[in-house]
């Protein structure tokens, strides 16, 4: 990115902070199967009353195209924040079609899904340039030090954009959200279950606080 482009973006950030940004575009990121689409569906349902924006599946890379939901209004902390939510495909450094065959797919289906999944990762990366902030969703039952997490956090820090870590799946018995807090102490962490709807009020307060 050139110096003038950086200056232009920086000026935009300053003006937004001074005059109060009316609408923020927030990307939902994370590794496959962290619960990004479950969370996106929950936010959309809670604040627009609309149906699901994406399908959820135990098979990784179910979301292979980014989906944007415009004009959500979240009321929290006595204020309203206007958001566009972008549910992005899961980020990964490797995609092997054989992984999908383990879920019962035919070889042909698995290869097609793998090809689409690689395109989805590229799309998720491209979206990083068009966001005002990120909700980084992590599975509380998994090791938080994945390269996807490290890379997304590093990129948001380099761009000086707000990041809120969502420690998801706290309803599961082996969830350990404290590991996520310990791994990334420099960023706010909210513990939720997008599936069960646990702690979502706390999440909406944090969204209003960090992206408002």
């Amino acid at each position, binding site marked *: 990115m050139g110096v003038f482009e*950086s200056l232009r973006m920086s000026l935009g950030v300053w003006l937004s902070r001074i005059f109060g940004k009316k609408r923020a575009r927030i990307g939902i990121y994370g590794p496959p199967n962290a619960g990004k689409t479950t969370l996106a569906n929950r936010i959309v349902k809670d604040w627009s009353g609309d149906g699901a924006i994406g399908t959820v599946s135990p098979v990784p890379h179910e979301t292979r195209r980014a989906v944007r939901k415009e004009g959500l209004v979240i009321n929290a902390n006595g204020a309203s924040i206007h958001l566009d939510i972008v549910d992005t495909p899961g980020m990964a450094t490797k995609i092997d079609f054989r992984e999908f065959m383990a879920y019962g797919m035919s070889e042909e289906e698995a290869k097609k899904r793998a090809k689409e999944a690689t395109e989805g990762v590229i799309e998720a990366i491209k979206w990083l340039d068009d966001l005002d902030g990120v909700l980084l969703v992590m599975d509380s039952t998994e090791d938080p030090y994945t390269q996807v997490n490290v890379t997304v956090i590093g990129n948001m820090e380099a761009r000086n954009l707000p990041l809120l870590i969502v420690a998801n799946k706290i309803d599961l018995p082996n969830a350990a959200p404290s590991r996520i807090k310990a791994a990334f102490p420099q960023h706010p962490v909210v513990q939720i279950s997008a599936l069960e709807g646990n702690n979502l009020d706390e999440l909406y307060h944090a969204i209003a606080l960090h992206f408002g």
Partner: protein
Amino acid sequence: MDLISEEKLNRMTSMEKIRLILDKVKTGRIVVLESGLTPEEEVRLIEMTMTEIRVDEFSGIEIESYPAKRESSFVGRLLGRNSSKGRMTVIGPANQLRTVEKDQYQISTKVSVGD
């Protein structure tokens, strides 16, 4: 396995580094970068990797590094950007390099040969 020095990396452009890494990894080599990549370079490496995945040939990379160290300068603050210093990074073919354990201070990997 190739260990690439910070001096060599500092002389290369981002694209040269990414090309060098992918060319080596696609031929089955493990690459260790003394000073790693910036977060922007890491994400471009992932993007390039996705374009080069081929069924039965190359399924992607395993990459492990520590969280980047942030360095905020006056110019960086003016531009609204923090510079990040990359840290030691290991990269290899996804079918040969597997991360066993990773924390803030140590990365343990398992390398399989002849796969």
